[in-house]
């Protein structure tokens, strides 16, 4: 039992970071119906930025979130304006998939040229610190990453529920046409939301590099996980993304410890398939009505 509880702790802590990454993806999908498959590459880009700040300017990776996040918010806004906004017509959703995939490959290429393909890791002095709580080990950096992710998700949630911008976002999610008729500037909402989605990836990326070694190709694995989290949680649902990420983290950790790591990812996908058979819209997703 001790082993299982230890695995659950490991899974919950890492699930929190995945929740932060996935929150940006689900937010952007909810508002624009854009599946941003560059989200994983943006996480890795942020991991490199944080790594560079740590290596060259000795900026603590957790503090680097304060620099990396706004910088990548601006990048996200520019990407939306230049690449995504111009997509029109019935094919816009499918085209956005291709455009963001091209963006992911572009980011990977640039990172490979600048940083080469060798693995990097951001290793502050406390990287190896472990706390023992009631006989269970809790890695300090994972705990920090979890707490930071939870705090940012709370801020994002408050932003969406307690501000005028948040109301505009939710109105656009529910009915873009009605929102526009009521005076919501849909273009502005979409642009800022895309930037917000990218900045969530940035915050998660900055701490990702402290937990895992990474290289430019690490985004392929990330995006497959993030997409499955968003689908399990329900496309466009922030709460769903959080729950799904935690389910993924815990399922994988427990299966790896109690059974075999080979089946860790597979077991999560079994959970995903079962949920989708029962609730095709995902845990918290809303079933779209046919017109």
């Amino acid at each position: 039992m001790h082993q299982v509880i230890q695995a659950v702790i490991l899974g919950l802590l890492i699930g929190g970071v995945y929740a932060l990454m996935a929150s940006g993806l689900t937010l952007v999908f909810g508002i624009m119906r854009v599946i941003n498959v560059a989200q994983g590459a943006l996480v890795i880009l942020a991991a490199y930025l944080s790594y560079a700040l740590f290596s060259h300017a000795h900026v603590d990776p957790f503090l680097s979130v304060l620099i990396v996040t706004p910088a990548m918010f601006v990048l996200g806004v520019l990407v939306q304006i230049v690449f995504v906004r111009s997509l029109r017509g019935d094919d816009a959703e499918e085209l956005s998939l291709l455009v963001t995939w091209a963006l992911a490959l572009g980011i990977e290429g640039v990172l490979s040229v600048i940083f080469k393909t060798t693995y990097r890791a951001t290793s502050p002095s406390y990287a190896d610190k472990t706390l023992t709580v009631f006989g269970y080990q809790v890695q300090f950096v994972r705990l920090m990453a979890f707490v930071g992710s939870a705090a940012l998700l709370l801020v994002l949630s408050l932003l969406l529920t307690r501000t005028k911008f948040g109301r505009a976002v939710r109105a656009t999610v529910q009915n873009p046409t009605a929102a526009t008729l009521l005076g919501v500037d849909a273009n502005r909402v979409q642009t800022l939301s895309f930037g917000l989605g990218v900045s969530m990836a940035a915050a998660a990326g900055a701490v990702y590099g402290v937990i895992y070694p990474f290289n430019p190709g690490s985004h392929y694995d990330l995006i497959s996980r993030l997409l499955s989290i968003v689908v399990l949680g329900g496309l466009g649902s922030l709460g769903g993304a959080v729950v799904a990420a935690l389910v993924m983290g815990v399922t994988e950790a427990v299966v790896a410890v109690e059974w075999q790591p080979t089946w860790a990812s597979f077991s999560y996908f079994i959970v995903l398939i079962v949920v989708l058979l029962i609730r095709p819209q995902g845990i918290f997703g809303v079933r779209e009505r046919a017109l």
Partner: protein
Amino acid sequence: MSRTPARLAAVAAAGTLVAVAATAATAGATRAGAGPIKIGISLSLSGDFSDSGKAAQRGYKLWAKVANSHGGVLGRKVQLVIQDDTSSPTQAQTNYQNFITKDKVDLVFGPFSTLLTAPSAAVANRYGYAFIEPAGGGPAVFQEKLHNVFFTQPAPVLQSADVFVKFLSSLPKSQRPKTAAYPSLDDPFSSPIADQVRALLQKKGVKTVYKTIYPSETTDMGPVIQKAASKHPDAIIGGTQNGDAYAQVKAMVQQKFSPKFVFLTNGPNDPAEFPSKVGAKNVNGIFSTGDWFPQEKSFGNAAFVKAYVKAYGGSSATIDPSSAEAFAAGQLVQEVAAKTKSIDNKTVISTLHKGTWKTVEGNLRWNSIGEPQGSDLLMEWIGGKLYPVYPKALALHKPLVPKPGWGSK
């Protein structure tokens, strides 16, 4: 007799076969003349293997530069014809086909990695070319049983960790591990090496308490190490590549699990990267293997290291072994030329199959299918530096046993 389309096609096919056979028969012969010796090399200068491909390129170019500064080979300058294969096996095959049939090079050297070497060696074999190759040591290369292949490292990949077993066997019985855990990456160059070690150690009475293979997308080694640690093994023996090796060590450190022996097939053998990934204070006592190291007293190694640093900067510690492996390919051609006064491919193949050949990679000899018959070096991190510690004759430091706790010297 009427000429039906089927008959015409048969005649054309027969003609083509004759033409190909004639080309193949003559292509392997060295073209006489006073021009430069052209050597075709396909390298991964872009794509997944580009870092290692570029390191091999530095080794090849350095050898050509050094050879030319000494008058070339058999009085002819060496000219390398290098083409990027974008890390693609198909492109590598095309490149070698072009080197031989269009560029009409005198010799070819191998590309980077088993994935590209196996199909490329078959192309060279078809035309009777020797295939001296620095980086294709996996089973796929030797399964073809080609007589023209010569791998310029001391041991094939699958046997690369046998030296660790020999080292453990050399220890007093009280110091040897009694139990071992084998967490390995699902990769043809990782888990089979650990399996080989496990089979050998089991025969010597080392009990396997845990073994698992994790998929390449496993980023979190926490659960894997947690399970291994729960079995309290004396040794962790991991078939790893760099990324998962770093993650395994980090997980062990974070979980305060410090076994008496840690051996990882790849990762710790990268002196430039390993300390920065796992923390310089966590490297000591960790074993890996290597085919080359800068201080090795092998043939021409000191001159190679000196010339490399002069040409490319940095220090001896930053030299990628891929550069030395490529350099060794050139050394072999020089030695064959000195011995036989020929670089004819047939001569190169038959000559290299006899005897032992001195290179920066040590003294090399091969069986009939190009598998080297030597042993890799056992490397260990001691005092923050990576040293060869076994076999004794090549050791530069006494082994550190058992592994000190994390954060200790």
